């Protein structure tokens, strides 16, 4: 039987002992570093918001969903034809959807593919991966916007975007001098989830010249 004062004693002891739990560093809060990154990120988002006026956002959203829908269609069509048969023809994108908006959506997927491919390649060559952290943060922001968009209503695409988000979060945390096995674990996770093959399958084919415009 627990007496009231016994419980109080435990609660007091627990509160005191728990101060060691995830104790923040003794140094001051890195407010300047965080503020600099907040300002940079807000500037970047604001620039994009200016570029995309309200009417353009709606058009882009429609176009992006169309493009991603085509990607998903190709992806699922390939899965249905494992014998290597010709992929099912995708629906035509209405001309008035705007090539520029198709490019924007495709560019995101292409940039991410190029980035992850480069990341893996550098890892194999034994070079430092810390330089990828900043790029991963940029892509992470776009990925989260995609996750918040109607495009994420599709289960398969959402899973791909969530996989990409997790990979990018991990890469964004890589720092110079840290344990290189962290990077190995990231690529192992990518392999296990077939992240790159799934990503490549989701990129619509076509004469969009953005695949050469990756971040690398």
């Amino acid at each position, binding site marked *: 039987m627990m007496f009231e004062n*016994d419980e109080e*004693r*435990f*609660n*007091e*002891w*627990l*509160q005191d*002992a*728990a*101060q*060691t*739990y*995830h104790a*923040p*560093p003794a140094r001051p*809060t*890195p*407010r300047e*570093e*965080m*503020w600099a*990154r*907040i300002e940079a*990120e*807000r500037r970047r*988002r604001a620039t994009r918001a200016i570029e995309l006026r309200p009417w353009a956002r709606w058009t882009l959203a429609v176009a992006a969903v169309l493009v991603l829908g085509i990607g998903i269609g190709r992806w699922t069509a390939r899965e249905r034809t494992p014998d290597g048969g010709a992929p099912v023809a995708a629906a035509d994108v209405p001309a008035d959807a705007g090539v520029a908006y198709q490019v924007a959506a495709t560019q995101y997927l292409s940039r991410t593919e190029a980035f992850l491919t480069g990341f893996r390649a550098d890892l194999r060559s034994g070079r430092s991966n810390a330089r990828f952290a900043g790029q991963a943060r940029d892509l992470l922001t776009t990925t989260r916007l995609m996750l918040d968009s109607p495009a994420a209503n599709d289960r398969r695409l959402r899973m791909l975007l*969530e996989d990409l*988000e*997790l*990979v990018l*979060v*991990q890469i*964004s*945390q890589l*720092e110079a001098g840290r344990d290189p096995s962290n990077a190995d*674990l990231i690529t*192992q*996770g990518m392999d*296990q*989830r077939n992240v790159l093959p799934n990503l490549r399958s989701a990129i619509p084919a076509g004469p969009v010249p953005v695949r050469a415009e990756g971040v690398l």
Partner: protein
Amino acid sequence: MDERDLISRVRAGDGVAERALYDAHVDRVYRLAYRLAGDDVLAQDFTQETFIRAFDRLPTFRGDSAFSTWLHAITTTVVLNGLRKVKRFRQRETDLTDADGVGGGRREAEPDLKVRLRRAIDALPEGYRTVFVMHDVEGYTHEEIGAALGVETGTSKAQLSRARAKLREALADFAGEWVT
């Protein structure tokens, strides 16, 4: 300067006021993020995202509650969502490590109180852990916790009580520490 005035200036696009508002709250936001995440990089990432969202959404802040309450609601949302994603990823890494046989076969020494306590807190259900950390570790009131997590004050109290009970059970070996 009064915080209401500061917020009005931020809404009007005053960059100096933005920085002042950030300076007034960043320490507590970062501390909470760190306590919940246990990782400096993640804590900084979550803090940044919290303020980015807060500045973006400031026009929707009606002032029904304190700004700090509103800000900590954003903080907990950002941190808990972020941690869920990181947890899923780390679970995959753990599965891979286990599959490779890495890290197996090593017998750990008997962990001390600090380690046992950390593990016990980590093992709490997310809601219990969040309330426990906010109340017993960071000193938030049940009213603040309820507002931040979007639950009733009574729910916060009940979750804290259950969290403590689970921790007491998990730390029974150390009973001598508080009984005497």
